[in-house]
C-alpha cells in the first residue's frame, strides 16, 4: 500500500508509547523463548558433531606422526568439553540465542536498507501534490504527466507507457449511509485494472511469486471480469470476512471522503487473505470519474472533490537519469496547478522510515555490538572458569614439556569449537527454517502470503560461523593468555 494511504485510513490503531513498549518487550521475550527452544532442539546436532569430530580425531591417532601425535592432544579438547556437559550445553544455547537475535536484527536492518536504497536500474517514481498532505490532485495532472513523458527522448521513457503508469485514488466508505462502523467500512483503491496485469502492483503482493501461480491465474481471470463492467470490484478476503460478504454479493458503498457519492458494487473477486491487499479493496478509476460526472449533471455544479480525486500517479522510469529529467520538467512547472512534485519511491519510503532511522542506528551501532560483547563475555567467563578448574593440569602439561602455545591452544580450541557450532547452527537453522516456512507458504498461497515473502539474507550462512570463530578467539583471549603464563614451579610450591 502506498505510504500516503495511511493518512486516509485514520492512521491505523492508536498505540500509546507504553503499549508499544509492552509489545516490544513481549515480542523480545517470545523471540528469546523460541530461539532457546531451537537452541535446545539443536543440541543433539551439536553434540553429535562434536562426537563425530572426536571420533575422527580418534581415528587420526593411528595415523603416522605428527598427525597421530597431535590428534591425541586435540582429543584432550573434546574430553575437556565433555567433562562438564551441562556447562558446554548452556554456553552453546546462549550463543545460539544471541546469534539468532543478531540474525533477526541483521535481516531487519538489511531489508530496510534495501528498501530505501535507490536501485540503479528501473525507478518507480511518484507524482504527488507538492504542498499538501494528503496529496489531492485534479485528474488532469495525469494527462499532463503523460504529455511531459512523451516529450522525453525515447530512451528516457518507458517503451510502453500504458504498461508503466498507474493512478491511485483512495475512497473510504461504508455500506450504511452516515453510520460507518469497523464492520461495514472499507477502503478502496480506485485504479485501472491494467495496473494489475502490467505488474505495477507487484510491490503490493500482486505478483505470481507472492501469490502462487494458482492464485495469480485466478486474479488475472478476475481482472478480465472487472473490465466488463465499471461496477465490478475486488475486495480482500479478510475484509469480506469482517463485513460478512462474499464474492457475488452486491453492495452499496456510501463514500465518506466523497460526500453524496455512492457506489453500486458487484463483488467479482477477492484478494487473498493475509496478503498486503487482504484487508483492502479495488475498483475502477473510471467508475469514480463517471460518478463525479453524474453528480455534476444531477446537481448542476461540480462535486467539491472533483478536482481533488487523483491522489497519486506512479510511473516506472527506465533509469535514475530519466527520472531526473522528468523531475526537472515537473517540479516548478506552472502547468501543474496545484503544484506537483515527482519523487522516487525509495525516497518516499525513506521519508516514511525516517522515524525508524534512530532505531536502525541504535540496532546497528548499539544493540548488535552489545550482543557481540555479551557473546564474548559468555565465552570468556566460561573459559575462565574452565581454565581455573584445570589450572594445575595445565601447569603439569607445562612441567612435562608442553609449550605455552600448545597449552593455550587447547583452551582456544574449546572456545572456538563452541562458538563455531553455536554460530553455524543458529544461522543455518534460522535461514533454513525461514526458507522452509516461506516455501510452504508459497505453495499454500492465500493467508500465508506474508510468510512467503520472508527471507533471511543468504550471507548469514557464512557470517554466523565466522562470528562464532571470532567470538571464540576474542572470548578465550584473556583466559588463554593467563593459561600461557601458568608458572610451572607453582605446581610443586603448593605442596604442604
Amino acid at each position, binding site marked *: 500500500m502506498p505510504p500516503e494511504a495511511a493518512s486516509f485510513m485514520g492512521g491505523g490503531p492508536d498505540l500509546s508509547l507504553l503499549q508499544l513498549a509492552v509489545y516490544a518487550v513481549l515480542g523480545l521475550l517470545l523471540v528469546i523463548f523460541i530461539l532457546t527452544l531451537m537452541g535446545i532442539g539443536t543440541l543433539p546436532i551439536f553434540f553429535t558433531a562434536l562426537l563425530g569430530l572426536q571420533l575422527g580425531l580418534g581415528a587420526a591417532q593411528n595415523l*603416522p606422526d605428527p598427525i597421530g*601425535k597431535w590428534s*591425541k592432544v586435540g582429543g584432550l579438547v573434546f*574430553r575437556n568439553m565433555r*567433562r562438564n556437559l551441562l556447562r558446554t550445553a548452556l554456553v552453546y544455547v546462549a550463543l545460539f540465542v544471541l546469534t539468532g537475535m543478531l540474525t533477526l536484527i541483521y535481516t531487519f536492518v538489511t531489508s530496510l536498507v534495501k528498501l530505501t536504497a535507490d536501485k540503479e536500474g528501473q525507478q518507480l517514481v511518484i507524482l504527488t501534490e507538492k504542498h499538501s498532505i494528503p496529496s489531492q490532485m485534479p485528474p488532469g495532472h495525469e494527462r499532463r504527466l503523460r504529455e511531459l513523458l512523451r516529450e522525453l527522448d525515447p530512451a528516457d521513457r518507458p517503451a510502453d507507457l500504458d504498461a508503466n503508469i498507474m493512478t491511485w485514488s483512495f475512497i473510504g466508505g461504508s455500506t450504511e449511509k452516515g453510520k460507518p462502523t469497523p464492520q461495514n467500512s472499507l477502503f478502496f483503491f480506485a485504479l485501472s485494472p491494467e495496473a494489475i496485469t502490467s505488474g505495477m502492483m507487484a510491490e503490493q503482493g500482486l505478483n505470481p511469486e507472492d501469490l502462487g501461480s494458482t492464485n495469480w491465474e485466478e486474479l488475472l481471470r478476475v481482472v478480465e471480469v472487472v473490465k466488463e463492467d465499471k461496477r465490478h470490484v475486488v475486495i480482500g478476503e479478510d475484509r469480506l470476512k469482517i463485513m460478512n460478504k462474499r464474492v457475488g454479493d452486491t453492495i452499496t458503498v456510501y463514500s465518506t471522503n466523497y460526500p453524496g457519492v455512492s457506489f453500486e458494487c458487484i463483488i467479482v473477486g477477492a484478494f487473498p487473505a493475509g496478503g498486503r491487499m487482504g484487508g483492502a479493496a479495488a475498483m475502477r478509476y473510471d467508475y469514480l470519474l463517471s460518478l463525479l460526472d453524474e453528480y455534476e449533471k444531477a446537481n448542476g455544479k461540480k462535486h467539491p472533490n472533483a478536482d481533488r480525486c487523483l491522489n497519486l500517479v506512479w510511473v516506472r522510469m527506465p533509469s535514475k537519469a530519466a527520472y531526473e529529467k522528468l523531475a526537472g520538467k515537473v517540479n516548478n512547472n506552472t502547468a501543474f496547478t496545484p503544484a506537483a512534485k515527482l519523487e522516487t519511491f525509495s525516497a518516499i519510503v525513506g521519508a516514511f522510515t525516517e522515524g525508524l532511522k534512530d532505531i536502525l542506528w541504535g540496532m546497528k551501532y548499539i544493540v548488535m555490538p552489545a550482543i557481540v560483547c555479551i557473546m564474548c563475555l559468555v565465552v570468556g567467563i566460561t573459559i575462565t572458569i574452565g581454565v581455573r578448574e584445570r589450572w594445575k593440569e595445565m601447569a603439569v602439561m*607445562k612441567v*612435562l614439556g*608442553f609449550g605455552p602455545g600448545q597449552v593455550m591452544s587447547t583452551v582456544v580450541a574449546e572456545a572456538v569449537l563452541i562458538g563455531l557450532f553455536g554460530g553455524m547452527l543458529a544461522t543455518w537453522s534460522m535461514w533454513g527454517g525461514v526458507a522452509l516456512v516461506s516455501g510452504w507458504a508459497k505453495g499454500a498461497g492465500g493467508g500465508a502470503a506474508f510468510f512467503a515473502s520472508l527471507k533471511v539474507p543468504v550471507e548469514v550462512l557464512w557470517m554466523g560461523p565466522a562470528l562464532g570463530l571470532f567470538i571464540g578467539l576474542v572470548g578465550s583471549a584473556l583466559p588463554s593468555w593467563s593459561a600461557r603464563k601458568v608458572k610451572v614451579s607453582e605446581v610443586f610450591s603448593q605442596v604442604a
Partner: protein
Amino acid sequence: MAIVEVTDLEKTFNADSPDPVRVLEDLNLEVEEGEFVALMGPSGSGKTTLLNLIAGLDSPTRGTIRVGDQVISGMSESELAKWRTRNVGFVFQFYNLLPVLTAAENVELPLLLLPMTGAERKQRVRNALEIVGLGDRMSHRPGKLSGGQCQRVGIARAIVTDPTIVVCDEPTGALDAKSADNALNLLEQLRADLGKTIIMVTHDPHAAERAQRIVHLEKGRIVPGDERLRLASTRR
C-alpha cells in the same frame, strides 16, 4: 663424574623488590649417577625450591647447575621445557594426573613430545605400567584408581621417557602408610634394577630412611657433617 652438580647456588625471590626473599645461598651439592638421595629439612627450608631448580622448573639467581652433560642454569624457559621432557621425570605429591585421560594416556603424554613411532610409544607405556605393577589397569581413568595406584601411574609417567633424573616432591605425602611403603619400594627398585637417579624431597624420616643418602637443608643451606652415606638398600 656426578650426574647432578650444583655449585654456589643462590635463589632469591622478588630480587628486584624492596623486600627480596633469599631462600637458598652458598649451596653446593653433588648427586652420583644411580643414587637415591633424600632432601630433608623443616618446612620452608627451601627443599622444593632446590628441587625446582635442579629439575629445570625455575632458574637460579646465582650459581650453576649441571645435569648430565648440560648446564641448565642460564637456559631460557623454552629451552628448559624441551630439556625437561627428555631429562626429568616428575613425581608429585598429589599425582597430578589428567582426569580425562586413562592411565595409559597419562603415561603416554610426555612421549608425545618426543620423536617416536606410535608403536614405540605403545611399547614404552606398557613397559612403564608393568614396572609399576599396573599392566592390567591401562585403560582406567584416575578416578577409578586408588591413591596408591594413582601414584604408581605418576611414577610410570616419570620413568617412561627414560630421563636422566627422577625428582619427587613429597611422593608419599598423600598416601596411607601401606601405599607409601609400596611407592617407596618401587622407587628403591627403580634405582636398584634400572639404575635410576632419584632425588626425593620429604619431611618424613621413615621415607628418607629408604634413600641411600639424606641431605639436610636448613634455612637455605645444607647442614654440613650431617650428611651420611648409607649402604644401598637390599629391600625389595
